[in-house]
């Protein structure tokens, strides 16, 4: 068996010339990710990541609406929470729809006055606001993830690593081309 000559520790292997790369910004993908959670990753060719993100963030957002109702998204009443909620674009549509319902009602929110929706109070309001705001904050992380990508870290580099037994140190035996007859 042939033995490779030992490498001298004083002579490091020649480094590959470092290509001058500029950061790559994906504004369109970030915008898509804001429109619908996961859509930005889908646009960058990562459908598996897109499905998981869309499912989790979408479930959080819809769960918040289910718990607290439409009144948890209110730009006028609690603008600080809306800063988090607005990081998922459908929050604007929900806020617009809530404002439209209020505008068309033109009455009080007394139960006898048949209001267009029941306002949330206490725990339902807390949890609904928390769910929708957390969905927005997590979507902000997803947007940042697609907004900037180092060109030296393309999506192909995010594939699973090789198992350890294939990367073990030792002489490599190359298979003959052509295979068995």
């Amino acid at each position, binding site marked *: 068996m042939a033995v490779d000559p030992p490498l001298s520790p004083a002579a490091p292997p020649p480094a590959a010339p470092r290509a001058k790369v500029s950061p790559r910004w994906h504004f369109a993908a970030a915008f898509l990710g804001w429109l619908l959670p996961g859509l930005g990753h889908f646009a960058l060719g990562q459908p*598996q*990541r897109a499905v*998981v*993100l869309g499912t*989790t*963030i979408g*479930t*959080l957002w*819809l*769960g918040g*609406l*289910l*718990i*607290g*109702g*439409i*009144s*948890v998204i209110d730009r006028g009443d609690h603008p600080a929470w809306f800063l988090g909620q607005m990081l998922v674009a459908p929050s604007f549509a929900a806020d617009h729809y809530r404002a439209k319902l209020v505008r068309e009602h033109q009455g009080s929110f007394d*139960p*006898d006055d*048949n*209001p267009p*929706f*029941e*306002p*949330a*109070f*206490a*725990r*339902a*309001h*807390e*949890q*609904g606001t*928390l*769910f929708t705001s*957390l969905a927005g904050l*997590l979507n902000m*992380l*997803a947007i940042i*993830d697609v907004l900037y990508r180092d060109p030296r870290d393309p999506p192909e*580099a*995010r*594939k*699973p*690593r090789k198992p350890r037994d294939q990367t073990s140190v030792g002489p490599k035996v190359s298979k003959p081309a052509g295979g068995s007859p």
Partner: protein
Amino acid sequence: MMLLLAYRPFIDPLPIGNSTAWVWLFVPLILLVSVAYKTIKLRDLNELPRAAAILAAQIFVFMGFAAAALWVLTLFA
């Protein structure tokens, strides 16, 4: 007229009321946050179930510690 008769999902709030059932809403919240966060952070999505489970457990444990500490604080405050 009772307003709850016309309950519409996503429009009207869930009738949680003053019960303690709302505490269980933290379970899906923590699980979903863990999975979404680890989906963004991990390079290899095959590691996602294990990493998300560990993060969820850490959040549960530290929220429990925080709740216990605050409860003790209220005993002496």
